[in-house]
């Protein structure tokens, strides 16, 4: 329960950080996605199903800010949560590998969902340019921020686990 509640302030802070700072640090036209990284990191550290709550909360906050369609944003983060969960079940002994694989596949999945959503909006994109200017920089920037966010989220997960244990 506490882990679900904590998702609200954490995702709110991360959304604000994403809008104010992270989105402004561009590599070519790409930027990192700390919401995605937080979901992936939480999926590795947390055992229960609250990862989907985190993804939903993150998706709702971002869809308030972004001009992307709400459904596209929320479904992208929920799919990333699902991917992380599946990979974590298979490779639970190696969390580093899980976050690396999940963030890579998650970034690519979100890119594909965004492109599909933009096609529905009537925006024509050139795929090679999009891959070169956005996907590759996104992957690189996400890789840079992945481990700091993973460390923060794992500390947070430990703190929540201790609190929940104490309450029981």
């Amino acid at each position, binding site marked *: 329960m506490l882990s679900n509640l904590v998702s609200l302030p954490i995702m709110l802070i991360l959304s604000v950080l994403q809008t104010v700072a992270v989105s402004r640090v561009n590599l070519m036209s790409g930027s990192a996605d700390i919401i995605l990284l937080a979901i992936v990191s939480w999926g590795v550290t947390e055992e229960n199903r609250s990862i989907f709550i985190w993804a939903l909360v993150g998706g709702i906050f971002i869809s308030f*800010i972004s001009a992307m369609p709400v459904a596209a944003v929320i479904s992208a983060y929920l799919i990333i949560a699902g991917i992380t969960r599946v990979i974590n079940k298979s490779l639970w002994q190696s969390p580093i590998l899980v976050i690396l694989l999940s963030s890579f596949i998650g970034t690519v999945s979100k890119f594909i969902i965004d492109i599909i959503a933009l096609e529905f909006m009537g925006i024509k994109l050139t795929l090679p340019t999009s891959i070169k200017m956005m996907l590759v920089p996104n992957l690189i920037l996400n890789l840079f921020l992945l481990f700091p966010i993973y460390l923060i989220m794992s500390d947070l997960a430990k703190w929540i686990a201790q609190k929940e244990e104490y309450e029981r």
Partner: protein
Amino acid sequence: MWIVRNSGQFDYLIKKSDMKSISPRVLRNIVAFLFIVGLILLSLGGVLRPFLGIIMDPFVTAQRWLSERFMAVYDFFTLPRDVTELLQRNAQLENEVSHLQSQVIQLQEQLREAEVLYSLLDFARSRPQDQYIAAAVIGKDPSPFLHYVIIDHGSDDGIQHGMPVVTQQGLVGRVDAVTASASRIQLITDTESIVNVHLQNQNEDAQVEGSITGDITLGMVSQNITLNPGDILLTSGLGGNYPTDILVGQIINVEKTENELFQTASVQPVIDFAGLRAVLLITNFKTINIQPLIPIPVQ
């Protein structure tokens, strides 16, 4: 008494009492005097300088070494004893310095903001027919595909959907979505943005379109028109979305293909969208929805 002195071929007899007697001491003094005078003259003439350097250098080095040690010992005995007090004073001064440094940074930031606001004010004064609201840019759309920024003014401040957004440099975009306290601005670099412009020197209308990479392109220009790098683009007011004569950008590269209906050109926007800090919203401009007037093609 007579003595015989030989001088070449002749011998002379000289009386010993006639010779002046010079004592060895006087002679030594004279030699010493002459030697000193000679040394002084040589020294004044600069001849002895290299030799003096060789002789004096080790002495100077030794003196410096000794002096430093002496002063260290002297300081040790003469400086105030209360080291704790000194450390406290040092910490206090360091705190003061860091506080002053943070104040300097804050003041620099305020100065930068003031400069931006002054230039926005100048722009507003230059167009007295428009009414403006100034707003700060507080965020950017998280999606890298879209080019939107978030500002800190919303419907509570009188912001409405469609209002044109400018800076002192030129056109920024238009209001896309409004909440009570914040608004989302679609930049002219966004893929969905189309701005009707006219070429300042050509008296010709065209369109500027955004792209996912943030580059803007001039389109819908007839092949008969000669476009030149450096040509200025201003809003034409057509379509009713933007006021007229707001600077949009400058042509940097013309792409003309003979078999195409229109020619295109890359445009350098006048705004540095990455460093956008404050904007002006034109509040008295009424956007016109011309959609009902566009004829629907008969199938």
